[in-house]
């Protein structure tokens, strides 16, 4: 048996196809991107090596909007952590306590998660439509006609209008993660708390939330990293405009590479995004761990 399991040829047959594809398509591009980011290159011919100039440019050419795009992605991360996650937690706690229609609500709340972002983007474009969109019609109907707006077209509102759908889309996902975690808490603990006369709010505050903390932390990481990587909805809804108002790093990277043909400069953005994601993953983990030991 052991001879079998150490069969070198078989191991190669099993692992190599997957590993080669993975190495060429996922791993190697990181090195390529890093290399491209040191070039001034329009995509044709050979680029000229310019060292770290592209990276300096990211933060000195403010008209290009990169610092703004980073701030925007932080705003999205803030919205996710402080609006989306608390809502998700609330619904997770309520549903996990076995309310009537638990399965129905859980299933329905999760639906936007599985929909294609393109569908959601197009749908919300219609929702935001200045004259025939749900939002403005709703506002007019309830007597707030003065608030109606060209939501995606105005620099004041484009940012939040582009971010709301992604908050909306993933509430169900975070809810499900926290719900599943809360469900795995043993019933005995709840029973004991009930007998001691604890209210539902107290049970949530002192028992469920501390016990599902590990999952809440995972949700925080997902929400922050997801925000830093966000692309689809912003690309569909506003393309980052108007005048960079709703720009996120990845939409800017996309436009820089494929519309301005600045391959090196765009790659510097890509490298920045990778570094930022890795850094934040590690930092959040450290931060949340430190909190534990207090």
């Amino acid at each position, binding site marked *: 048996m052991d001879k*079998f*399991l*150490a*069969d070198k040829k078989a*191991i190669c*047959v*099993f*692992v190599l*196809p*997957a*590993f080669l*594809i*993975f190495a060429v*398509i*996922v*791993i*190697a*591009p*990181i090195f*390529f991107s890093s290399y*491209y980011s040191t070039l001034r290159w329009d995509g044709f011919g050979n680029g000229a090596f310019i060292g770290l100039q592209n990276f300096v440019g990211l933060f000195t050419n403010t008209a290009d909007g990169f610092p703004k795009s980073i701030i925007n992605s932080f705003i999205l991360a803030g919205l996710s952590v402080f609006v989306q996650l608390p809502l998700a937690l609330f619904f997770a706690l*309520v549903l996990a306590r076995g309310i009537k*229609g638990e399965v129905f*609500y859980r*299933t*329905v*709340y999760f*639906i936007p998660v*599985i*929909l*294609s*972002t*393109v*569908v959601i983007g*197009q*749908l*919300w474009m*219609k929702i935001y439509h200045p004259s*025939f969109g*749900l939002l403005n*019609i709703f506002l007019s109907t309830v007597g707030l006609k003065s608030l109606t707006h060209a939501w995606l077209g105005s620099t004041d509102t484009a940012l939040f209008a582009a971010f709301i759908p992604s908050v*909306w889309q993933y509430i169900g996902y975070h809810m*499900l*993660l926290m719900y*599943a975690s809360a469900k795995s808490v043993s019933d005995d603990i709840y029973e004991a708390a009930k007998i001691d006369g604890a209210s539902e709010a107290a049970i949530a505050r002192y028992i469920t939330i501390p016990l599902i903390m590990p999952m809440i932390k*995972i949700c925080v990481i*997902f929400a922050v990293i997801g925000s*830093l*990587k966000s*692309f689809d909805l912003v*690309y569909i809804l506003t393309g980052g405009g108007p005048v960079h108002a709703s720009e996120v790093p*990845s939409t800017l990277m*996309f436009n820089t*590479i494929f519309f301005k043909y600045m391959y090196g400069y765009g790659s510097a953005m*890509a*490298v920045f*995004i990778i570094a930022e*994601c*890795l850094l934040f*993953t590690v930092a959040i983990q450290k931060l949340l761990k430190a909190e534990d030991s207090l």
Partner: protein
Amino acid sequence: MRRDGQKKHYVLGFFLGLFTIIQLYPLIWLVLFSFKDNMEIFGGNVLGLPHRLLWQNYNQALFSGKVGLYFVNSCLVTGATILISGLLSAMASYAITRMKWKLSKITLTIFLLGLMLPIHAALLPLFVILRNMHLLNTYWALIIPYVAFAMPMAIFIFSGFLQLIPRELEESACLDGCNIYQIFFKIVFPLIKPAVATVSIFTYLSAWNELMFAVTFISKQEFRTLTVGIMSLAGQYTTEWGPIGAGLVVATLPTILVYSLMSDQVQKSLTAGALKG
């Protein structure tokens, strides 16, 4: 005391109901306007039920809008991605978790690193690689990257699952004269079927809905998948809501169908990635 509890019950019910409406109503509205024409929408009936069901919107989206073609392309690309990445990942996971070799740990670590990497990082290099290999505007331009990026999660799930399978099964198969390939395909693969379902659903959702690669690597209409196709449809019928709505509904139906048939499995698949993380 009891009345108080009941009042709380109503407040809670109100919130749950309100959130149900917020999550569902946009979709219902989508289905409703997919059956209307511009006259009806811009003539004041944006919200209500359609006066009559305009199936021709669907006709228009599917055939002149080419959503039918995009749909077939999406099925091809997604189907191939699920099959290839599922098989390759299962094989790799088996060798990593069950077979004995020195580099198995580090190989697993490298694969799992892929879970943390944003696909943006690979966009331009992949574009250049595919361009040099003349693969842009082919199905492979999407299938190969989708397979590669599906593998970390698949291997993560498979290797977790494989660790739970008792060694005795392989041992007795070995005594019965199976070779290592037969053990994998005849004994192990059938045993990990639940994990295959989980991985397939996960891969389906990400491949079916992927946008960034699809926009970049495919510019010819004949190879467009639904995500890009729907965007071009929206560009083509900018002011006609009916056909766009119909296209969106068609793009969504398979996913909703899968979800309604196995919502538990779908929810389990999407939590599987996080639960052990």
